[in-house]
């Protein structure tokens, strides 16, 4: 089957080739009834055929963003590449090429038909994202591996598989193994699978499949859990209270604090830490709950706002549309009379029409201005309300952070006391064996120990400050971005679009009489 590479000059996917391919799909061919377009509209093409062309590299395809069907069979392609932007692709034919690895298909989530027939693939892999895969042809390849078959179990929508012509397919138990391991497929090598052989096969591989299912279930469970966790985290982040549902903040305070950790070895520190942690976590938890609650109220507020705005816009648009429709009705009637007279538009009618047009324009503009007024006011109210909410949130959080700082101060004080006591005892030579050597010198001197305490305290405080700053800056950022966007979209952009539309309409309608 070896192809004579050297005899063929590889071709490049060029503009001409693409143009040609697109044109050839059109029914009229060379017919000259329609002037040829000078430019190719890539996004309008949804099916492309580039077969028997000795293409070596898949390139220059990224413009076809609406492509659903791509045929590149019978070329000399060696790598699957350059398909990342073709996200709407449902049909991909790469049969009769020289591909050795399955790769580069990750973005094609809509793919249902994939043909890799007659290539040099040894492993079925890198297809996890193709959830909708329905027909998969991998015949005449080098697949010789049970795991490749097991890999296909993950495609729930897979119904047709072609494995013929692989080394694996020549094994004696190939058929039973495949139909037992792929219960979702209906056709293997384009032949319907009967119930009876399948049952037999399932019985034969019962134990292995059972094991497979168990591991798969476990994996799925794990995926689900991590997914849930991610979602949860995202939610917390949007509420600006991420990593506050447990003791993360408390542990973070001690994480980078090497001095402090040594200090904790002071006798009595264990109880102190436990005590403080309990209080600390309690406060953080109230903050967390409060944050979630606030988010809910904010969301509700935003929803209410959007409902109102959308209703107002819809109502306004509807009324404007009614006015336009009425005018069009009037226009047809006006001109219908004229046409019957077999002559041009009379000046009287033209004048009348002109007046009506001005009237129409005024009406539409008045409606638009009314809407602008309405929206402006509503947006202002919304901005005010949301701002209050945010400041409420900030204040409450600030108070809580204050509590946390107090707790830290208390902790610091206590630890200093404990340390001083320990130093005194050290002076007296009372503690000998309890301390490890490296911390021993820390307690040799009172100043050192006080310094250490101070450093630790500072680190803890800065952690809290950092968290507070982050929270506040993020929420204020969020607020300004959203409000700015609303102003931009709803007030400015919308208004401009509507005005343009009105003037376009008026111009278009005025053309009726200007021609005559």
């Amino acid at each position, binding site marked *: 089957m070896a192809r004579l590479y050297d005899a063929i000059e590889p071709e490049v996917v060029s503009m001409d080739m693409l143009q040609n391919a697109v044109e050839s799909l*059109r029914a009229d061919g060379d*017919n*000259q*009834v*329609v*002037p040829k*377009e000078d430019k190719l*509209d890539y996004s*309008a093409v949804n099916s492309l055929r580039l077969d028997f062309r000795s293409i070596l590299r898949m390139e220059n395809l990224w413009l076809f963003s609406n492509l659903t069907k791509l045929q590149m069979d019978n070329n000399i392609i060696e790598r699957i590449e350059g398909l990342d932007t073709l996200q709407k692709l449902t049909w991909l034919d790469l049969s009769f090429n020289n591909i050795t690895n399955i790769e580069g298909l990750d973005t094609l989530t809509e793919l249902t038909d994939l043909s890799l027939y007659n290539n040099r693939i040894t492993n079925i892999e890198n297809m996890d994202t193709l959830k909708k895969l329905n027909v998969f042809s991998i015949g005449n390849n080098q697949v010789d591996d049970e795991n490749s078959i097991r890999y296909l179990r993950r495609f729930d929508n897979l119904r047709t598989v072609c494995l013929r012509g692989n080394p694996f397919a020549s094994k004696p138990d190939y058929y039973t193994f495949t139909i037992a391991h792929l219960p979702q497929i209906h056709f293997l090598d384009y032949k319907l699978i009967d119930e009876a052989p399948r049952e037999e096969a399932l019985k034969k591989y019962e134990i292995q499949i059972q094991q497979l299912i168990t591991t798969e279930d476990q994996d799925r469970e794990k995926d689900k859990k991590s997914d849930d966790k991610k979602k949860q985290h995202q939610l917390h982040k949007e509420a600006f209270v991420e990593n506050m549902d447990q003791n993360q903040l408390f542990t973070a305070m001690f994480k980078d604090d090497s001095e402090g950790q040594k200090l904790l070895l002071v006798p009595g520190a264990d109880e102190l830490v436990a005590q403080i942690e309990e209080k600390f976590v309690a406060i953080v938890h109230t903050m967390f709950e409060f944050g979630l609650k606030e988010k809910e109220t904010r969301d509700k*507020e935003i929803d*209410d*706002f959007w*409902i*109102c*705005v959308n209703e*107002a*816009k*819809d109502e306004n*648009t509807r009324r*404007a*549309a009614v*006015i*336009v429709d009425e005018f069009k009705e009037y226009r047809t009637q006006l001109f219908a*009379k004229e046409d019957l007279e077999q002559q041009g538009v*009379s000046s*009287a009618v033209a004048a009348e029409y002109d007046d009506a047009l001005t009237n129409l324009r005024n009406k*539409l503009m008045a409606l638009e201005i*009314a809407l602008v*007024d*309405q*929206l402006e*006011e*509503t947006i202002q*109210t*919304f901005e005010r309300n949301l701002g209050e909410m945010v400041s409420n949130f900030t204040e409450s959080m600030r108070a809580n952070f204050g509590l946390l700082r107090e707790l830290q101060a208390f902790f610091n004080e206590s630890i200093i006391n404990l340390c001083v006591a320990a130093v005194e005892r050290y002076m007296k030579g009372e503690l000998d064996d309890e301390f490890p050597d490296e911390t021993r010198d820390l307690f040799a001197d009172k100043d050192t120990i006080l310094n250490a305490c101070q450093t630790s305290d500072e680190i803890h405080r800065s952690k809290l400050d950092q968290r507070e700053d982050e929270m506040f800056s993020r929420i204020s950022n969020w607020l300004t971005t959203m409000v700015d966007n609303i102003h931009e979209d709803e007030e400015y952009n*919308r208004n401009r*679009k*509507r005005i*343009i*539309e*009105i003037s*376009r*309409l008026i111009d*278009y309608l005025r*053309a009726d009489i200007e021609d005559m």
Partner: protein
Amino acid sequence: MTETNGDELHASHDVNGHEHADTDEEVADQQNDSNNDVQEEILPPKPKLQPIIAPDMFPPPIVICENPENYPESYRTNTKKEELILTFIENFRRQYHYIYRDRKPLFLNPLNECGLPKFVCTTVQPTLLSFSKLFQWNDAAEFVADHLNYELLEPPHELPKTLWSPEKVLYDHRGNCFDYANLLCSFLIGAGYDAFVVSGYATREVCFMDTTRLPNPYIKKREEKHVERVKPPHKKYTVKPPKDLTSKYDAYMHQRHLDKIQADKNRRQEEENKRIAEIEKPLPDPLYGIRVHAWVLVLPGKREVPEAFFIEPTTGYGKATNDVEYLGIESVWNHQNYWVNMQDCSNGCESLQFDLNDQARWEFMFTYSTSLRGAVTATLNTIGNSAILDEEEDKGTAETTQKDIEVPPSWVRHLDLTPAEFQNRYPHSRKTYFYKKTRVEKYAPYFMKDGIVLKISEFADYDFKELIYVTQKYEHRHDKLEERGHDIRTNTVCETYLPGRPDQLKEHTYGFGPEFERTMIYYDKARLDGLAKRHETMLELTDYFVNPRLDGLAKRHETMLELTDYFVNRDDFLEYRKALFEPRPKKFGPAEKDNQRPIISITERYGRNVELNANDDIRELVFAIKDDKFVITYHRDDIHITPSTRTYVKPINWNDKTITIKWSDDLLLETYQADEDFKQMSKRDLYYKMLKLMEQEEEVTRRVQKAEDEIRDLQNRRQQEELSNELEYSVYDTERNKKSREYRDLLDKRDKEEKRKREIKDVDYLAPFLAAIGKPSRINAHTAQTLRTSAQHDFKERSIRKANLMQARYENEVQELITKQQWYQKHQIGMTKEDELEYQRVCQDAQFRLHILEERLDRHKKLSAEKYLQLESKLNEDPRLKEPYIIPEEKK
């Protein structure tokens, strides 16, 4: 016993005559009775207070019973128990009249159709007929009202002297109010209701069954319900309404004007109402309050009846117990007891209490019944005796001795109706009712040839002269016509059809007049094209406009024909297709019909296909055929106020198929896009779009012509259907459906044949031997033995013969084969290939035959042994070969 008691007592005289042979107790009764007679004799001087209604002064009622022998025993004679009851009643009556002298007589023992006095309670025969339709009180009441013809009481202020059995009433299709009530009560008690016959007084309208003042009960609910839009709950954000710049003063003045008009209207309406009320008020009735009437009372407790109510048996309507039409109650009864009303009826039935156990209000006749009227248990008799009889004794009457008297079972035979009779519901299968400005005619199904079952004629006046609307309902029609409403004033007809027509027509509205309008509504789910409604109308356009050249007012009158098809649930979202036709040139003649009218334009309206962009989704497609134009209007999306439009002009030579149409910029007349961001179509796309439109135009024109044809077909078909008006019969209706009956007869016949065949199978193996000895009726043991042996012998012989025959054939076949083989051996050398093949075939055939014969022989050998054993056992069991050797006559 004197003869002066009048004829009414004649019967009781007879009764007394029979009673002499009875027990002592009854003798005592008789004594009581004669005591009462004595009282009765004392009475005549007293009733001066009520000279008109002295019961004994009635002229002898004549019940002419032409053929009493046709009636069952219980109709012609009274049993002892009944006689006993009659004496008891007579006693009760006398005491009652003695105590309450100013009360009118009670309806106790009228004569039945054989001229025999019967107690009213025994005339009630509780019956549950096998028609589920009679199980609900309203259906049963309607049936009774429909089934009978009403006869007035004569005179209207006196109780009737006779009460026929419900059976006779049911079969004669006629009766007075007492007969009605009695029959209905029998049905209701049978269906489990706590129902009573009420004897009392009612207004003239009720007594005359005059329903002409009642509103039409069949009135159609023509008004559609207005769906109130529920306002969404108040939201936090609302936009302020746009500024209201209208003048408040103007609005105020306008409102005042409107109010004035409204007030005027109200006043006029009120006057009108008053006038109508004046017209509808019944004339004063001189006999008000003494017109005797009977109806039905249903008490709560059974069949989930929440409270007591009346049923007017003559019309079948339920009425409240305080209905003003009912003016008083004398007594009520059911099949168990009789109660006399002791309450004041001076203001009608309004204040009456219907707790029949309340003795201050209701005087009962039989003591036990009071206890039976609670929970039904066997032990209640004693309670009843102890509690209630004390009072009885206080009264010092003779009733103490009758504490064990019960109402005997009804003398009436069980009521029965055949399904055919039930279906023929009305006397002579038809009945007419009159309501206010309405005449209702009812017919039994299948009675009228055109299948009509109900005809409601509404009139504008009270004298039924000016017809305004006729509704006719049909059943079992072949063309599935269900209802036809004819509005006489506008001369329009609205017909509704049941599902199942080949054209899926559901409703058809059309007129006869010059204004041409026709609406057809279809069962859209049954139609492949989803057609829901088709509307054809004549548009009259009248335009006034100033003509600049003539400086005058010109008037243009134009008529256009419009045909609109409305669709639902289509895959292509088509909502309607409207075609405008030029009026057909006015020519007359039948040939004209086949011509298609010239089409001016066709408009197609599409719904929004959410899968497409609004700007690519066509909303309206106008094929202006006359102007050679296409106008496309696209859908408007939510943010734009204008839809995009595109207008094409057909190329000049579009009709010429030989020329390939070339694109030129003139073809696209104008384009309007709502937004400049919208995609511009390339020239190529526009070109193809136009070609497609031209194809589409042909297709659409064809569709419209087809629709026209369909309308014409429909008109023709309807005419034919009207003419044929055959009724269709359900396949389950074997009485009417001929095919069904034939099929059933066939099945019956087949069954019979099958049976006969089975009989034949049991061959009598003794018959030939019996025949040989001359079919004796008896044989002796010896003969039996001989018969037996000869039968066995015969069987053996037969099987041997058969075996021999087979053997012989087998040998024959073998011989033949051998000869053939020998012949082959001889001629083998000079044989052609064909001959050889032929020989082989013959051999194979022979071998096959041999094989079969062999098998058959084998089988015969096996079977004959078995068969012999069977024969033996049969002979052993044969009764003819055993004592006493009797041979039954052969059935022919």
